[in-house]
């Protein structure tokens, strides 16, 4: 599985004011909980931590900005910002709970799939 968030030509990657976290868009702003979990598991702890450290101080601002948009019908830059916020929840499991990118001593890749009725 290779997940990439793409930015259509002519569109901003993220809303104005969030330029500092743009470098994380292509890897972390992917749609779907299963995909975001995969991204967290399929990289190194250093990479997860780098994203966590950059995203954590912006999460509250991001959610304030996004509060004005409909959750299921956001413009492209807002949708990508929302997915970065959601990925922070995934990354926090690595940084705040496990102290490693993944569950220790569990196989990777694994057969675990998160199946949702809607894809945010």
């Amino acid at each position, binding site marked *: 599985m290779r997940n990439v968030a793409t930015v259509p030509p002519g569109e901003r990657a993220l809303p104005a004011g969030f330029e500092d976290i743009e470098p994380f868009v292509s890897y972390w702003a992917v749609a779907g*909980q299963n995909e975001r979990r995969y991204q967290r598991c399929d990289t190194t702890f250093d990479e997860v931590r780098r994203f966590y450290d950059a995203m954590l101080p912006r999460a509250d601002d991001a959610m304030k900005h996004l509060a004005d948009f409909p959750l299921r019908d956001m413009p492209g830059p807002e949708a990508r910002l929302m997915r970065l916020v959601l990925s922070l929840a995934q990354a926090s499991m690595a940084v705040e*709970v496990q102290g490693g990118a993944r569950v220790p*001593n569990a*196989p990777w890749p694994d*057969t675990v799939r998160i*199946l*949702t009725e809607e894809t945010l």
Partner: protein
Amino acid sequence: MRTNFTQAAGLGTEPLSFEPYRSQAYFELEREKIFRRTWLIMGRVEDLPNAGDYIVKEVEICNASILITRQASGAVRAFHNICSHRGNQVVWDSKGSRKTMFRCPYHNWTYGNDGKLLAISDEKMFFGVDKKKCGLDTVHCDVWDGWIFINLNPENRMTLREYLGSMGNFLSGIPYPNAHRSIKIQAHLKCNWKFLIDAFSEAYHIPVLHSKTIGPTFSNKSNPLAHLQNAEFFGPHQSISLFGNPDYKPEEAALVEKLAYSGMVSENVLAANQSEDTADLRSHRSVNPGKSPTWSMDINEIFPNFHLDVAGGGFWTHEIWPITQDSSRYEMRFFVPEPKTVREAFHQEHYIARLADVVLEDLANVERTHKGVAARVKNEMVLQEHEVLIRRMLKVHEEFEQSETLEEAMKRCAWADSDTVPEPALENCA
């Protein structure tokens, strides 16, 4: 805390054989005497809300593919998903809506969602087929409190209600919040299915195996080894209540966890809902039956492979399906509200991310356990008081394997119903 669950369940204390977990002969018995006889969970009525909706479920151990449909009358019916022409599966996806006709993708034989064969393509080239005799084969199907079950024995005479017996009475009327919306965690494991049942049947492992993820939620200084608070036994079914740490708080450094829960007034980290949305659930007589202030959740085990777990913050289920002696399919469903804001979506992402990690801690572990047992070095396992569900489950299996009918098995399993045994001790932990 002293308890006497094992004694109250009418069980011995001896070590138990590993053979049921690694023997092919035993697996064949389970197929014939358990999965081909008992009522099996298929899902919730909310999974097919409207006339014309359907779901397809696999029962691999019986080679069965089951099509469940919602009729115009509102009734839910089940059929073997097998075409009367040359035996292909008629429906190839796992769910759909507003479809009252199914066309077999092999040669276009067409069925109604009531199972009737409606049309045969190129019918005049056949040799006088009686369409009335070529419908889909009906499977016994019934609904209890919104849960859909099937029974694969065409000769079955026991109703679902009789099968659930006093467990059904115990649980009846629980208001299930968000029953219409679930997130599923699915996995395929290289292990006997009973290792998965066992993995979710005791709390002894929680402070150890899950020390970082949920250990602090299920234990504290007063109950460091997560001793059970209660156990109830109902024929082949059983129920336990787990301890909860009322003082759990996110660690100082868990900034994202704090942010995720900042908009929540909730029962604990296993909460998908705000407290106010689960008040009805928590006040049900059989949810936290001792109404203990140090309670986290109930595990309700409906024989043979369904766990219906209820916590202060909502409910979830485990389905555990044997495929072969040493491989299984696992499905957990968390019933969660529809997020309306980014903050709610963020909380839900955090909630499911944590649970996926917890479940993976268990799942990686069952494969290790299977490997250890299959090595045939050890022949017995030694169980303690708070692993009573495992001991009792194996005894229930023994009763089923020795029975010629479901009726006989159910009679044998009534050896220690909650109605007939002394109440277990309920003092708090000291």
